[in-house]
């Protein structure tokens, strides 16, 4: 099956679009399935016929066997009564029937061989059919997946963004990791700096400390004014 698809692929090498190849593959598979099903149906009909024929011959063999046993008793009875001639005639009939019996048994054996062979072939075709049907199912599912993926991709290309694939995802993840990493590093740094030193003092230096300075200035100016000679 795969080699048939390969041949189809080579033949379509100049054509674009995998959908062409897939529908070719499906056409091939569908035809194979139809052929297999026909073959299977014919084989099963033939099997029924053979089994019917075998049964007829088998029944005849059984009848012959029973008759021979019955005749044997009659031959014995004839001998008991001293009727030799009759016994001989009966024995002759037994021999004729015995020949027939062997012939019937041989035919039954032949049928048995044919039946076994046909059964094997039917099993083979059954297996093949099962496999072909599964292949059709898989090809159809893959085709659906391609179409769905293509639909998603074409949405992206419509928006002029890159198609999402695992590669893009990987990049995004790494970016995010780096970003997270940087953020986490910053948080770590901050935590380290802030522990053990005078936060208060720095805060003062940055903000609240400024206010105190101004007040001192005022106070100092007032004190200076108080202490300064009046002019």
């Amino acid at each position, binding site marked *: 099956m795969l080699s048939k698809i390969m041949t189809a692929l080579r033949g379509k090498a100049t054509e*674009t*679009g*995998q959908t062409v190849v897939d529908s070719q593959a499906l056409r091939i598979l569908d035809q194979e399935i139809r052929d297999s099903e026909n073959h299977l149906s014919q084989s099963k009909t033939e099997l029924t016929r053979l089994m019917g024929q075998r049964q007829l011959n088998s029944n005849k063999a059984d009848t012959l066997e029973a008759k021979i046993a019955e005749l044997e008793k009659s031959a014995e009875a004839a001998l008991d009564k001293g009727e030799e001639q009759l016994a001989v005639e009966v024995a002759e009939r037994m021999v004729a029937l015995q020949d027939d019996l062997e012939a019937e048994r041989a035919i039954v054996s032949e049928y048995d061989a044919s039946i076994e062979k046909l059964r094997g072939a039917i099993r083979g075709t059954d297996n093949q059919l099962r496999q072909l*049907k*599964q292949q*059709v*199912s*898989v090809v*159809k*599912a*893959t085709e*659906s*997946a*391609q*179409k*769905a*993926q*293509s*639909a*998603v*991709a*074409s949405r992206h*290309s419509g928006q002029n963004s890159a*198609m*999402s*694939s*695992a*590669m*893009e*995802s*990987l990049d*995004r*993840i790494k970016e995010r990791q780096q970003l997270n990493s940087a953020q986490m590093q910053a948080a770590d740094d901050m935590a380290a700096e802030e522990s053990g030193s005078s936060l208060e003092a720095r805060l003062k230096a940055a903000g609240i400390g400024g206010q105190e300075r101004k007040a001192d200035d005022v106070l100092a100016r007032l004190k200076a004014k108080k202490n300064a000679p009046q002019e």
Partner: protein
Amino acid sequence: MTTPTVTSGITASELYKLVSQPAPASSENATLEWPEATISLDETNQTLIWELNDYGSLPITLSRSENEWVAMAPIVAIDSVKNSAELNEVLLRQGISLPLASVGIVEIDGHDFYVAYGQLFGDSKLESICAELHATASAAMDVAELIQTHFA
């Protein structure tokens, strides 16, 4: 495919209903951890699409046919890869170590892509389907990493 025919198991539409609505506490679905995603249904193609939040909207598709589920995630365009012949051999040899998923080449929107994919029987349990989705996403990421490191 407007009328899905499935031999056994549930259809894509039925699965979509199951995963897009909050599950009743007692159901099998309640304990399953479907991937975190925006889930949509492409009914024409009998496919569910998970756009994974955690992976920058990586689209994993889950398609239903008569006997199978097929999960698929795109990895990278073949054209972006250096030395694809060597990569192909590596993937064939190492692919076995990827649980539940395989790597293939598939045409998407006119370009050939490496994809991660997985196949399940149509009558698989929800548990198995869920596991397959996670495995396919992981495989896609693993192979992307491999390519980025050695073949980009």
